[in-house]
């Protein structure tokens, strides 16, 4: 069984221009009626009086991409989608920058919206990715997903 393993990782933050390019590429797909997009942005949380200035993301890339291939197939099987794109940042992402971009498209909105939501949940729960929250003074703590 040969699966195409697509890379989802991007070194550094995801720029708004990258997102608009991705949106623009769908104008030729005229069966699409609805796009649903989720963006994760790094939050400047306060932790014990210190502000998070950035998050450094690392991954077990081989395992993450295999897992993502499975998730992608299951989502395509469950929802009627025209397409589906996922990008996750690696490296240091500053507060206010975008670190996750999940993009689903369908002829009708319910499929696009539900698929996008489920993808976000699964990415957070199932992908071997770790965020290290780096504070102003250089201290850090390991992010915990809610």
């Amino acid at each position, binding site marked *: 069984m040969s699966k195409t393993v697509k890379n989802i990782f991007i070194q550094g933050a995801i720029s708004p221009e990258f997102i608009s390019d991705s949106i623009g590429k769908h104008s030729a797909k005229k069966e699409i009626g609805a796009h649903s997009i989720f963006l*994760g942005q790094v939050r400047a949380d306060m932790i014990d009086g210190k502000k998070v200035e950035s998050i450094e*993301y*690392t*991954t*077990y890339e*081989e*395992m993450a991409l*295999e897992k993502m291939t499975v998730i992608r197939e299951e989502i395509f099987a469950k929802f009627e989608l025209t397409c589906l794109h996922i990008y*996750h940042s690696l490296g240091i992402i500053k507060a206010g920058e975008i*670190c*996750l971009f999940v993009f689903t498209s369908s002829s009708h909105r319910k499929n696009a919206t539900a698929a996008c939501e489920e993808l*976000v949940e699964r*990415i*957070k*729960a*199932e*992908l*071997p*990715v*770790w*965020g*290290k929250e780096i504070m102003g003074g250089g201290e850090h703590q*390991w*992010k*915990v*997903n809610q």
Partner: protein
Amino acid sequence: MAIRVISFGQLSEITGKIFQAEVQNTDQLAALLRDRYHIPVDIKYMVAVNKKVITNNTLLKADDTVALLPPYSGG
């Protein structure tokens, strides 16, 4: 038999990114992490053998890659 172990997230700060472990199975690896690396008991992690998360004690072969995975926090 030296098994290649890759460590991620918080655990990589304790064990280093990659190390060799003289173990026959994953239970022996868990004991090694506790005894030699003194990994605190409140640090939870999963073990993957060749990228598959295992839940029971698993025999290891020389070319296996074992990964130590703290709770995921992507996104």
